[in-house]
């Protein structure tokens, strides 16, 4: 293909957008909204994963050991627990150390309350971290069946909430994505149909003078792709705006979140190249594919 022909076809594509501007604008809007919704749910999922990851790293399961067992039994128990697949690290935390730690963290008045106690009321414990927080409950149930285990304590509540949010989000965004892609394709394909109709005379002549199908279709592809990429640019700008707003709120209240073991959100700069590339590719592909539905049967020689 000659450069001059390519230039001509690209020009025709842009002209088509303008000629057909109402429909092009409708395509643009629906694609922008779709990309935005998909983008935001993906970013949300990414951050929830990051938070869950942070909790996984920090959250400890405390296993309370029966009082007065032998060192050999304790070593046995430690090995048994350490052998569980979900257990990452395991550390023995003696009651003396726990007592000392507790005392250090108390004010003088508080400490005075314990002056009468010459006996250490705290138990020996194992502190362990897990690989996967979603299997934490399963793991603690297993540990509780081992001999010499009194009880276990684990911070599963918050993690469980996040995990169920992530699951619901996954289902909803999957459904939304599917629905939106279909809507996008329908709208774009109708836009193209209108554009084909607007240019039917030219197309008719093109066929008589021996234009190849690909040649006739290229302007419509370009039309779809340009609208797609413009929608991607719009979606990117809005995503950046919205994300940075949320990020700022989160950052301000960070102390509150960090108490819960939550690490911070990804900064938008880190995500920008991926978001931009995904939007651009998705926009261009949906735009081009959408046009091919209606160019298929209308334009054949």
């Amino acid at each position, binding site marked *: *293909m*000659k450069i*001059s*022909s390519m230039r*001509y076809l690209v020009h025709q594509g842009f002209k088509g957008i303008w000629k057909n501007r109402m429909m092009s604008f409708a395509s643009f809007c629906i694609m922008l909204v779709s990309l935005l919704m998909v983008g935001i749910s993906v970013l949300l999922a990414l951050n929830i994963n990051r938070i869950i990851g942070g909790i996984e790293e920090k959250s400890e399961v405390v296993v309370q050991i029966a009082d007065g067992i032998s060192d050999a039994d304790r070593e046995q128990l430690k090995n048994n627990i350490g052998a569980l697949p979900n257990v990452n690290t395991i550390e023995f935390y003696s009651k003396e150390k726990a007592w000392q730690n507790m005392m250090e963290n108390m004010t003088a008045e508080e400490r005075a309350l314990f002056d009468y106690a010459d006996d250490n009321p705290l138990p020996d414990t194992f502190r362990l971290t897990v690989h996967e927080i979603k299997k934490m409950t399963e793991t603690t149930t297993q540990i509780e069946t081992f001999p010499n285990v009194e009880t276990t304590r684990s911070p599963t509540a918050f993690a469980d909430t996040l995990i169920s949010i992530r699951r619901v989000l996954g289902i909803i965004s999957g459904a939304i994505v599917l629905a939106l892609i279909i809507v996008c394709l329908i709208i774009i394909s109708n836009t193209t149909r209108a554009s084909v109709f607007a240019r039917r*005379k*030219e197309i*008719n*002549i*093109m*066929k*008589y*003078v*021996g*234009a*190849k*199908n690909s*040649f006739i279709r290229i302007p419509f592809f370009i039309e779809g792709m340009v609208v797609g990429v413009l929608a991607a640019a719009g979606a990117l700008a809005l995503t950046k705006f919205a994300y940075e707003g949320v990020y700022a709120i989160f950052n301000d209240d960070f102390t509150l979140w960090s108490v819960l073991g939550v690490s911070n959100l990804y900064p938008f700069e880190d995500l920008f190249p991926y978001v931009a590339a995904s939007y651009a590719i998705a926009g261009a592909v949906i735009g081009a594919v959408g046009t091919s539905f209606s160019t298929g049967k209308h334009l*054949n*020689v």
Partner: protein
Amino acid sequence: MVEFKDVSVKYSSGVDALNKINLKIEDGDFAFVVGPSGAGKSTLIKLVLKEIDATSGEIVVNGFNLNKLRRRKIPALRRTIGVVFQDFRLIPTMTVYENVAFVLRVIDAPAKYIRSRVPYVINLVGLSNKAKSYPTELSGGEQQRVALARALVNDPKLIIADEPTGNIDPALSYEIVGLLKGINECGTTILMVTHEHDLVRHFGGRIININSGNIAFDEYIGGSNED
């Protein structure tokens, strides 16, 4: 060259448009196709362009066997043919120049060639001073001359004109056919459909008369302008 062997066309509506037509048009010929409305003339033209397929029989056009021609090779066939329609079919948003240049762009001709070839053919049909006009600013005869320039521009072996004079003043019709004759003298085969008997009698030449899907008459007659 156009060759029809026992070609029949039956439309899905049940109409028998052509019945076992046999026809041969040699390179360099000028043939008028005449006959009453509904005789099957346009059907014949559509077959040559492979807009429709014959129900039976064999067709060869400019070396392409249309029975075996794949869909994706149709553009290659059409690049050897120029077409002129009764209703001109110019693109209203393009100037005369663009309407003609458009054809060469479509077949991916070099820009340099387009720049020299387009003014040449526009001059040939006598419209150099109207190159920048839009079709609506032209008379019917002028519009048909643009269509002729468009059919000519990629130097086809065959030009097909389906009632090219049907929408223009009789006086201007002679001008159009005169142009086609001139093009024919340079070696291009011409197949022109018309039902204007005066024109045919005036110019003479090969007359193919179609009636109810059959060739009623296929002869050379002398033109009155040659007396």
